[in-house]
Each structure stands twice: as structure tokens, then as C-alpha cells.
């Protein structure tokens, strides 16, 4: 009997690192539920400039098993704070061409307020806790490993190039 009831409340969260382009449409369909009135999303895309320098390409690397674990921790923290239905968080690694999605967060909830707030919180939390690193390669062939301003331990020293 219990098994028959289970599909009504699917709470498995998706926290993934992938090397391929993120399939936004498929993520949307994964988080949709019949009892949701909202799906909120954040899609982070790669930018072609930083402080006047032209960025040719971006490369991400991750400590994948830990990154997946941290993504799922964020999902469980979201569930402690907001009443949401389903959560999907995916970060792409490797070379991400300019203009493509490097990260996508999709959250469904009965009403929009919960999923909108949770999505905004989730991207800040991802930037401060999930072990992923980004390197920008510039037109003049120089490159730079970026530091998120949300990352608490990065701030122990000043004079670091910061990026939000």
C-alpha cells in the first residue's frame, strides 16, 4: 500500500556535475509536478568579458564526488527552509563556450514565493560551498582562476580578484 502512495510525493533531489551541455528543457520536465503552481529557475551563463578584458573561453573543474554531496546538502537545507516540491541543481564542468549555461537550478513549489526565494538562496549557497573552480582565458592569452566573493575562506586574504 505504501508503495502505491509513493509516486505522489517524489522528493528525490537532483544534484549533478556534468560535462555535456545542460539540457534545460529536460530539467524543467524533471521538476514539474501536478501539484506545483510554479517552477523557478536560475541559469548561470558564461560571459565574454571581465573588467574590460575579452574572455575567449572558460574552463571549470570540480572535486566531483564532494561537489555532488554539497549540492545535495543545499537541497536538504532548502527543504528545511522552504516548502518546495522538487529541486534540480546541475553544474557543467570542462570547457564551457561563451554564452552557454554553466549552472542551472530548477525548483518547483505549490506557490511561486517559495521556489523564487529558494532559487536565489541556492545559487548563493552553491557559490560559497560547492567545490568547483573556474578559469578564464583571455584574448591576450593570459588566464585567471576566479574567486567567488561568497566563498568565506577566500576572504582571509585581501587583494584577490573577486567575481560574483
Amino acid at each position, binding site marked *: 500500500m505504501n508503495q502505491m502512495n509513493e509516486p505522489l510525493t517524489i522528493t528525490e533531489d537532483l544534484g549533478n556535475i556534468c560535462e555535456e551541455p545542460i539540457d534545460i528543457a529536460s530539467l524543467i520536465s524533471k521538476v514539474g509536478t501536478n501539484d506545483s503552481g510554479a517552477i523557478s529557475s536560475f541559469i548561470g551563463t558564461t560571459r565574454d568579458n571581465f573588467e574590460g578584458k575579452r574572455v575567449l573561453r572558460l574552463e571549470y573543474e570540480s572535486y566531483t564526488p564532494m561537489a555532488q554531496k554539497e549540492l545535495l546538502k543545499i537541497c536538504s537545507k532548502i527543504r528545511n527552509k522552504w516548502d518546495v516540491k522538487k529541486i534540480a541543481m546541475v*553544474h557543467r564542468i570542462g570547457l564551457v563556450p561563451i554564452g552557454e549555461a554553466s549552472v542551472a537550478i530548477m525548483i518547483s513549489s505549490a506557490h511561486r514565493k517559495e521556489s523564487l526565494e529558494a532559487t536565489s538562496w541556492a545559487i548563493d549557497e552553491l557559490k560559497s560551498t560547492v567545490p568547483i573552480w573556474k578559469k578564464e582565458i583571455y584574448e591576450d592569452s593570459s588566464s585567471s582562476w576566479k574567486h567567488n566573493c561568497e566563498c568565506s*575562506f577566500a576572504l582571509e586574504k585581501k587583494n584577490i580578484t573577486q567575481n560574483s
Partner: protein
Amino acid sequence: LFFGEAKAILNLSEKLFIFDQPTNSIQFFSILRQTFPQLSPIFDHSILAINLEYVQNDQAVNLKDGDEIALIPPLSGG
């Protein structure tokens, strides 16, 4: 394990450490500093993760055989 800028500077993604006496995470961090002086700009804003969990720099965790320790430089996901 080394990641990001640290991995790029060392051109090394992992190294095995064998200790003949009990060692904790704070001691390990200072051993890393001595072993890889070329990473000194990074150490001041990095932390360790042991077996996929962050360890704060002032937290002394005793290391065990087989522990996987990662040097985590400033994050830049997103």
C-alpha cells in the same frame, strides 16, 4: 588531492603522504606548506576537506589510514 590553481601550479593532482606518527589536520596543513612553498599565496585562503567534508583551519581532526584529503582553493563555481 589538488584542484584549480594549486593543481595548475604543481602540475600534480594527487600525492600520497605516509606518516609514522599520529598527525592531525592542522599539522598536515603545515606539512603541506613546507612541502610546497610555491603554493604559499594559495594556502592563506584555502581550506582542507577530509573524506569529502570541509575541515575548518582551526579544527584539529586526527588523520587515519586511507583518508582522502583535498586542498580546497577559493571556490569559483557558478
